[in-house]
């Protein structure tokens, strides 16, 4: 649990046109709120790259809050819809990797909502205080590294980046997709990718056998083997010797 003197580190991404202006309005109206948040101005919430978020956690952030314009108000028309998909996927990745997804939060604040801005920041800060520090031990670092690999993966970025437009306009064949079903497909792609990333994160510390990886990740050996075969086909992993008559797997080129 959090100790008294601990102050959470919170990074906020605010879009220039609504939420950052809302923060300014909180200022000019002298509305007081929790001081832990550190705001980074971006032009649009859709500009926030999931990579930044995971990197922030890796650097020691305890929480990340992204605030954009309300739907319909985005200065760039659809940026906040894009942001919603990206942040949601990032939350899911955090959760699949076994981290608290509540540490990442997305909401909307207009330029006229100084009060709401302050309230959301207070609520989020409180929540992070309750969750306590992220405490980056090896285990968590490994998970976050895997999460970073996942949000950087081209396939994952493609499907997440495509979600909004596919649901709006249909796929390449003009078929309309059911948002829920499509999102489930995306999730399974992400999950698959995250597993690979986790294996790679484990292999970072040197070559390992299937059993070692499986016990480390608490996954069945068959599943690990399947992913390893994929990874070898993707040229990411190679055989790296033998240990107790069991083959060792290693990151390619390391």
């Amino acid at each position: 649990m959090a100790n008294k003197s601990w102050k959470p580190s919170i990074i906020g991404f605010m879009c220039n046109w609504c939420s950052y202006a809302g923060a300014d309005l909180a200022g000019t109206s002298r509305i007081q709120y929790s001081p832990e948040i550190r705001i980074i101005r971006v032009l649009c919430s859709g500009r926030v790259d999931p990579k930044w978020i995971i990197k922030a956690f890796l650097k020691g952030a305890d929480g990340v809050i992204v605030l954009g314009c309300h739907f319909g108000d985005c200065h760039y028309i659809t940026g906040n819809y894009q942001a919603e998909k990206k942040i949601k996927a990032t939350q899911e990745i955090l959760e699949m990797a076994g981290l608290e997804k509540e540490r990442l939060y997305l909401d909307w604040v207009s330029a006229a909502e100084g009060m709401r801005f302050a309230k959301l920041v207070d609520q989020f800060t409180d929540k992070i205080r309750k969750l306590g520090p992220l405490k980056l031990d090896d285990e968590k670092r490994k998970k976050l590294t895997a999460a970073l690999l996942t949000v950087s993966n081209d396939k994952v970025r493609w499907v997440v980046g495509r979600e909004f437009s596919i649901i709006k306009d249909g796929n390449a064949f003009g078929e309309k997709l059911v948002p829920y079903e499509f999102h489930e497909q995306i999730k399974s792609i992400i999950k698959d990718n995250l597993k690979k990333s986790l294996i790679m994160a484990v292999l970072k510390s040197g070559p390992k056998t299937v059993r070692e990886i499986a016990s480390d990740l608490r996954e069945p050996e068959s599943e690990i083997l399947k992913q390893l075969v994929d990874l070898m086909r993707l040229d990411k992993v190679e055989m790296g010797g033998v240990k107790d008559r069991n083959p060792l797997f290693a990151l390619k080129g390391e």
Partner: protein
Amino acid sequence: MGADSEEKRVGVFICHCGLNIAAVVDVKKVAEWVRKLPHVVFVRENIYTCSETGQAQIYQDIKEHKLNRVVVASCSPRMHEPTFQKVLEKAGLNPFLFEMANIREQCSWVHGHDKESATLKAFDLIRASVSKVVRDEPVEKIRQEVKKEALVIGGGVAGMNAALLLANAGIKTHLVEKNPSIGGHMAMLDKTFPTLDCSICILGPKMVEVGKHPNINLITYAEVIDVEGEVGNFRVKVRKKPRYVDVDKCVACGDCAEKCPVKLPDEFNRGMTIRKAIYIQLPQAVPAAYLIEEEHCLRLKTLKKGGKEVCGLCLKACERDAINFDDKEEIIELNVGAVIIATGFEIYDPSQEPKYGYRRFPNVVTQLDFERILNADGPTKGELRRPSDNKPIKRIAFIQCVGSRNEREKGAGRYCSRVCCMITAKQAFMIKEHEPDVEVYVYYIDMRTAGKGFEEFYQRGRKEGITFLRGKPGKIEEDPETHNLILVAEDMDTGVLLKNEVDMVVLATGLRPPQGLVELAQKFHLSRSEDGFLMEAHPKLRPAETPIDGVYLAGCVQFPKDIPDSVAQAGNAAANALGLLSKDYIEMTPLHPVIDLEKCIGCGLCEINCPYKAIRVVKTEKGKKAEVIEIACKGCGVCGASCPEGAIEMKYYSDKGIEAMIDALLEKKEVEV
């Protein structure tokens, strides 16, 4: 020479902002810590950095200490970023090698009770800015040619004035009005307060001037449907509805309307008189021409259903051959450098509050209805008669603040609509002038009469024998036989419960944002204030500008105001637009991305997601690659944030810069308060 090869020399200027910052943030201490940051070669504290002297200091210090990057820690960059960037430019630096740390709005003003945290936070924000600025690279501004035409949306008194000012200055101005005639609400008013000028008498000549001005392209019965582009070069699509009457041929004789069999309530007289399906909006309409309302014309309705050419009585009646049933909707494309929005307001609809009985009781009317009753062209030809039975009015009551200063009612505003008190004062005064014996009661909470000559006018009304009662009736009841209205209210000055039977009630209805404003705001990416009206760029200093360059506001679309204030704001908007349009080109911040062609695989996700079609995939020698159309790009960065290959980098506000900020903000602090 690459920016990397030169030594980075950052100067940091920390502002006290009088006591606004210094009273909370320990500026001295922060300055001490900042001095130790890598690349920081110079730190100065200023009392007011934005002042003339403050700016001159920065200039001098850049020269003297050979600074090549600058950080100012003061207020919001949304306020003064351009101010300081100009100083850099003057001193010969690239204006984008500059960062602001917002230590006023984000520290001193919001953490006033926790000076220690505010001080630490201020340091963090500055440290992040320094980290970013040393990674920033110079970027060149983009030049945008300025299209020397203007668009004014809304042809009420504000829009007309703005258009005239621009047109008189030689600017080709397009004025788009949604109604068949310009004139707006002011054309419906009988008199104006406090001078009691006849409204249409002062407005009419202006309307004619607008209609005849060689530099004004008047587009009535039309609306804006699409907006593209940016300051200096907006491309606007306007849909003009068919009138079915040739404006040039029509002489507004009215023969057609006499023959037309379709009777409809006349909106201009607030539904208290009848008009035909072929009609003219008001006698003084500009353009002075009739039109056929498609939805109600018998012939057009039947034709639309595939039927025969029926009726056609107007066709036969028109001697000038002005009627054209083949008229079609027109899409007009405009290309303008500046836009003024002046779409005005809508009056509150009191029927959503059943207690007032509006629309249920014929003798309950709004102020705007009553304006028409007072008017010589209105339903009673200016005689004080009530709607239910046309009987002369002997006792009349006004109820103030209907739909204003109301937190509970959903469609109402929390704000004071500013004009209703004076309208009541004027209307009460007019009644007394028409018929001195009529008893007039005004139920109010506060009478607000701030304005030149307003209080004097109101006091004059009191002397004329108008009874002002502090207190609002809880509800209005009607005597079903006489259609008289019964009001019960507590007179708050005496505490006595008063029952009052009157012939007629006038509701002082508030002003609300006009319908369609949400959509219009979205087309221009404008924000609305909490009250629903359009938000200005700065409430004090830039009341007619918006956060979007090249888009200005005039009149009630920004907030309810009276006629002189609307006209004044129109002047401000026009002056701003002129300032812009007097330039041949403007320089814009280069917000667009650059593509790393080595990494790009031409997958096209950026093209799919770009809201401005500013990026597209083209075939090159090296295969398919993304290409940026710089001038169309607005810099949102969605493409970069989702590029699967990490091949897109924003030039300004780069990933490198932002990641440097993240790192700096999360670095362990080696300082103590």
